[in-house]
């Protein structure tokens, strides 16, 4: 995978998409083979070195990783915890730090007016956009997105993918919608039962090809 590439991971439920992303951000150790993320093996690192590697990898989960009891501003700021010292993280809970960046990121996902809301008061789709805003303030070199558009309507889904694709970071996103994959990604990787069964630049794929892959 090259720097700046945007890869859509497609496949049926249980094909191994989420596992691939979890191995890439180091939360699940690989059981076989070698892993190389941004030139390092997360399994071989520990402590500070591992944290520094992880700071360069941002993950958009299926909006389940947010803390409901915190205001939106803190959940977005959590994207910067790797670079902030602990005291600054603590101070920010009382007096939010770096507000302009948070507001800029929230404006991108059209949630700036909810910045002070408690996160558990938001709808599922709004929470997913908060998760995207967290990655925007993190500014990682590699973005891993696990079905980032699943809870969004078509217009917002398109806009969110455009946002993630427009950061300039390398992007690996698992997607259920073939049209989104073709529009925003440069390469499609298909998984079935944990194995790569399709790997092709989007330029040579048609919507019909991809839809047929899902139907298999």
């Amino acid at each position, binding site marked *: 995978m090259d720097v700046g590439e945007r890869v859509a991971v497609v496949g049926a439920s249980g094909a191994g998409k989420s596992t691939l992303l979890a191995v890439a951000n180091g939360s699940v150790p690989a059981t076989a083979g070698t892993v190389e993320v941004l030139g390092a093996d997360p399994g071989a690192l520990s402590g500070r070195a591992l944290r520094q590697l992880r700071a360069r990898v941002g993950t958009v989960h299926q909006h389940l*990783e947010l*803390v*409901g009891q915190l205001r939106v501003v803190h959940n977005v700021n959590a994207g910067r*915890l*790797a670079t902030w010292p602990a005291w600054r993280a603590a101070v920010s*809970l009382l007096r939010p730090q770096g507000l302009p960046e948070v507001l800029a990121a929230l*404006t991108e996902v059209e949630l700036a007016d909810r910045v002070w809301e408690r996160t558990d008061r938001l709808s599922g789709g709004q929470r997913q956009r908060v998760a995207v805003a967290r990655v925007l303030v993190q500014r990682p070199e590699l973005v891993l997105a696990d079905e980032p558009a699943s809870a969004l309507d078509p217009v917002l889904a398109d806009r969110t993918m455009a946002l993630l694709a427009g950061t300039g970071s390398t992007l690996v996103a698992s997607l259920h919608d073939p049209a989104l994959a073709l529009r925003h990604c440069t390469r499609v990787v298909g998984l079935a039962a944990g194995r790569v069964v399709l790997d092709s630049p989007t330029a040579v794929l048609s919507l019909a090809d991809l839809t047929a892959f899902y139907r298999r």
Partner: protein
Amino acid sequence: MTAVTTRAAGVPALRRDGVRWAWGLGTLVVLGWSLAGAGLFSGAVVNTAGTRQFGRFAAAALSPATDAAFLGVLASSVLITVAYAALGAALAVGLGAVGAVAVARTTWGRRRLGWALARGALAVPRGLHEAVWGLLLVNLLGLDPWVGVLAIGIPYGAVTAKVFADLLDEVPRGPYEALRATGAGPVPAALYGLLPAASGGLLSYSFYRLECAVRSAVVLGLIGAGGLGYQLSLSFSSLRWPEVWSCVYALSALCVLAVVAGRAVRRRVADPRPAGDRLRRDPLLTTAVLTTLAAVAWSWWYLAVSPATLVSDRTGDQLRYVLAAAWPPDVDGPLLSAVASAAVDTVQMSVIAIAVATVGAVLLAGVAAHPVRPTVARRLTGAVVRAALLLLRAVPPPVWALVLLFVLLPGVLPGALALGVYTLGVLGRLAAEATEELDPRPRAALTALGASPVAGWLYSVLPAATGPVLAYALYRWEVAVRDTVLVGLLGAGGLGALLASRLAVFDWGAVTTVLVALVVLTAAVDLVSARARAALR
């Protein structure tokens, strides 16, 4: 520049929740006032001369007394404590069952006033600590086993009545109303329509009371009712540290046994075995109930309890004399101002205690919780911390107060800290359980983006656990106020000390005044705590 334009585009201003902030600020002010009242900011509080004695005490932890003679004494003390606990709990469940009928909404129907009065009447026995009942009863009955049994049975009976009534009232009314509509009388209708649905809860709560009764029986021992608590105070006052530690370990074992057995019963009640097509009783529940009944019968024999004592002429005369002397209560100026300042001390002690316990519980909860991905070192520290918390809550607060008096000068502070470490034992476990129940995914997500352990804890565990832990802390504050009286009875100041001094000179009018103050104070604390918990939600 972007920030300014987005603000102009309609970013709302940060609005803090005023009610919560008021509660938070109020708490800090009260805590500061309490610490000042305990003399923390004015002069010495540490007793440097006692550190060597404290060292000797602590060193004896590793070499408890194990000689045969003392172990024999210990064994019979354990039996006495168990007997008091079993009889006290049995009496409480009996009183509770009768009382529940008297205070249930089902009984009163639409007669709101009668129901409210019946409920209010329960606040009096509930507001007084078991030890206070013990001291009052000893004046009526003399040194009789009934003192220990009634001292547990009366306040526990009142609490049990309230909880039983709530359990009955929470049962859906449909089946009961349907039976009544077919012409069944209220009692049979309740037996078939209400009791089956509530029986699991009633059984669980009865066993929970039995667990609590073990602790109370130890505490009553401290004020002279015999058993483990009595042995502990004897060994303590004769400075025999190895014996003290033997008692402490026996106490811890007894508490663990009670909790493990009680929990097994309650788990089984919550998750019953399928019965199938044959009539089959659950062996665990049957054994538990039969063992308890046998234990109650044995306790009756072992303590040589005689119902004749309760109805003897001497008891009647004494009761008439005390009641005549106790009414009207004393309301002269010096006494009232003493009561007021003692009440302030009591509140301050309980506030310091709960603050110490809450801070400690928050810090220890993460370590004490069972880890998601355990390593050997992590599992070992967890086990050590959990054992330490168990030790903290197994030893009654007055004993901790005596231990702290080695290193602190007498006053409000040692009593408050003693109560604090004891409550820490309880609250630490509750906080650890609250932490275990949290969703692990938010924390895992923060780890995955490179957050340090501290930052990850601040942004995931802290905000999610604050609500439940504070609610527990407020609830334990109600308990702590009652326990403050207990620590006071043994000399640490506050209303308890005032009560003990008035009782010692048989000044019954003043005793009534202090008791009224106690009941009012505990009711007020319950009210404030309930309001604060509502603001948390």
